[in-house]
């Protein structure tokens, strides 16, 4: 084995820096799922009758469904009866100010580098902090309300804006959409809600920070973003979890509604605990993300997936309105024994709709990375256009990269382009950089970041810096 291959393996067996857990006083339901648990969750949250009915309908649907097995993932069976479906940090029911946030929770977020104190925040980002699926605080709420923007936890939205929630919940991802979405619909505990009124450009980036803390719990959060006509919002999502030996289930649903001429930009940096190099522990991440773009609207997904033992995730856009635009930019890194099966679906319905897919998969150590994407052009979609580019980078000999594109075209006027490439970080590239004085770690980091450049360019500035850093950490074990 050459020296550079050996180093790649050393580099990719790095430690997870967010692996600590916080001892929070937590309200937790007994493991297992039946109708009474669904009712318990709903009553814990004082939900209206319609929402309970909606959950029960989802639960019934889920019971009749089977886990999907088409993904290229090897997963130990998940025992849904061993999972607890409700865990929430105990704290005062209503928060009047940031000072009411449990100091332990505040410390936890400080440790994660997410300041919850507004006066401490350097960048212009409003944060909704979610621990074990329950929103613990939302910053900059007042500033946003002045602009007419609603940004709050999902529970608050159900309480304060029930009509808005009722109108849009499940409108993009119906309860029976898939196994994990149905499960989420039945048991979701909280999440973020965001509403941008007509013509408003959201004055700051909105951000949700997800943290799994409790043991043996599933995390099921729900995000709903509604952008009215001519509005604009940029939304960021970050996630971490403690280092534990057992696998934890995370099944989230995100729904985006972009009305006429609205634009939603949704960026994710996913860094759930990936498990160790032998594949012990790590988060099972089964996520359904989908947006509906109306006339002249634009929905753009950008994701950087470095964490989780299993990633099953296909952020999609239904291009319903004429001239609507869908974009998907993705970096997925599979190290250690991580497996990622991720991609997108672009469903062209309206005329002159355009979609762009840029996917960068990086596989290292024993990681397996699959791009799975669907481009579907319905008969109604005159002049639909799609451009897809899937690039895979292999670091080492024991990893794998797979590209599985599905293309279904019902309208002969469609223009579909697909490009794919697979490459390795060449020893000649490393040598070239080292001859110019760079250490092997710096060279590797530079080359991998260069490979991801087109995707990182789509991220908001602070997030791009974070993503680069995360990639370097995941690959190298330490930051210089």
């Amino acid at each position, binding site marked *: 084995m*050459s020296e550079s291959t050996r180093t790649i393996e050393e580099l990719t067996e790095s430690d997870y820096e967010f692996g600590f857990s916080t001892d929070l006083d937590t309200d937790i339901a007994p493991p297992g799922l039946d109708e009474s648990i669904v009712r318990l969750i709903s009553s814990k949250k004082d939900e209206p009758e319609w929402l309970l009915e909606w959950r029960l309908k989802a639960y019934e649907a889920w019971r009749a469904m089977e886990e999907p097995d088409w993904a290229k993932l090897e997963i130990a069976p998940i025992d849904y009866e061993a999972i607890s479906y409700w865990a929430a940090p105990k704290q005062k029911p209503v928060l009047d100010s940031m000072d009411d946030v449990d100091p332990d929770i505040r410390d936890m977020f400080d440790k994660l580098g997410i300041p919850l104190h507004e006066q401490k925040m350097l960048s212009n980002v409003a944060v909704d902090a979610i621990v074990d699926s329950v929103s613990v605080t939302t910053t900059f709420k007042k500033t946003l309300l002045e602009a007419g923007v609603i940004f709050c936890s999902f529970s608050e939205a159900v309480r304060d804006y029930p009509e808005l929630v009722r109108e849009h919940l499940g409108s993009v991802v119906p309860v029976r959409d898939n196994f994990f979405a149905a499960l989420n619909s039945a048991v979701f505990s909280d999440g973020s809600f965001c509403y941008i009124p007509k013509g408003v450009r959201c004055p700051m980036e909105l951000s949700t920070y997800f943290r799994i803390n409790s043991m043996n719990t599933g995390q099921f959060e729900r995000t709903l973003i509604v952008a009215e006509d001519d509005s604009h919002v940029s939304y960021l999502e970050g996630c971490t979890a403690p280092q534990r030996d057992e696998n934890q289930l995370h099944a989230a649903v995100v729904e985006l509604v972009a009305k006429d001429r609205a634009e939603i930009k949704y960026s994710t940096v996913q860094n759930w605990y990936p498990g160790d190099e032998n594949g012990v522990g790590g988060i099972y991440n089964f996520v359904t993300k989908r947006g509906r773009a109306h006339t002249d609207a634009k929905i753009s997904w950008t994701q950087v997936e470095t964490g989780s033992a299993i990633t099953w995730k296909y952020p999609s856009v239904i291009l319903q309105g004429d001239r609507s635009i869908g974009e998907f930019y993705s970096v997925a890194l599979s190290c250690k024994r991580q497996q990622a099966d991720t991609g997108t679906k672009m469903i062209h319905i309206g005329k002159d709709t355009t979609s762009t897919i840029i996917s960068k998969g990086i596989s290292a150590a024993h990681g397996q990375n699959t791009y799975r994407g669907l481009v579907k052009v319905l008969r109604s979609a005159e002049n639909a256009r799609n451009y897809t580019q899937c690039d895979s980078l292999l670091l080492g000999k024991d990893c794998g990269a797979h590209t599985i594109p599905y293309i279904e075209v019902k309208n002969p006027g469609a223009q579909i382009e697909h490009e794919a490439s697979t490459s390795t970080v060449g020893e000649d590239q490393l040598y070239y950089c080292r001859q*110019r004085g760079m250490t092997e770690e710096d060279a590797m980091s*530079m080359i991998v970041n260069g490979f991801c450049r087109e995707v990182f360019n789509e991220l908001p500035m602070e997030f791009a810096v974070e993503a680069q850093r995360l990639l370097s950490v995941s690959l190298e074990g330490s930051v210089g």
Partner: protein
Amino acid sequence: MLHVNNLTAAIGGKQILNGLDLDVGAGEVHAIMGPNGSGKSTFAHALAGRDGYEVTGTVTLDGVDLLDMEPEARAAAGVFLGFQYPVEIPGVNNMYFLRTAVNSVRRARGETEVGARDFLKVAKEAMDLVEMKQDFLDRAVNAGFSGGEKKRNEILQMALMQPRLAILDETDSGLDIDALRVIAGGVNALRGPERSMIVITHYQRLLDYIKPDFVHVLVDGRIVESGDHTLALHLEDHGYASFVNHDLDDAPERPLTGVQS
């Protein structure tokens, strides 16, 4: 400056350098010529520290032993290799690459790093030297560069790294006459009393532009003849045949460079 003593190199069990000796004094330019497969590029990579070679012998630069050092440490010690085939690094901005290279070496030497603005100024001057346009800095490293652009980028890097020892491996290959002139102009401008150069080439043509102080003929991994630039002219007329065929073991003992640094 550089002392190479009884250097051997093998790759995958195949012996390529067979006891190479060379002394290069400060400020000197030495040309290494030889037929295909004689070990010219291997010599360059053995000096730069490429992985995969089994190397014996000694190589010292300014009294420091290079052979045990990693490639990046050799770079910090002042070794620069202009690649025969410069490597493409997609997505990495050339300007960023150049500055990272310069600062990596400065950091290794305990010097302060150069900020983006100061670096840009220096880079612009260096680019004039090789007649490169500004947009070169914004492109990805060597990606989609023409052959001539890649080679000019190497000389640009050399100008920015300011090495003690520059090894130029077939810098003239694949160049038209205009590009050759530009590159030779850049190299000549970088000659100086504190900088030594080893110019590896197949053809005498390059040496019309970069006049070497010494010319060596490398055959079967060993230097078999040394002289001044007239040796290159001799090779141009007569080829390598007379060197290739003679029995190396019977070659007369003679000083190989004729100089002591």
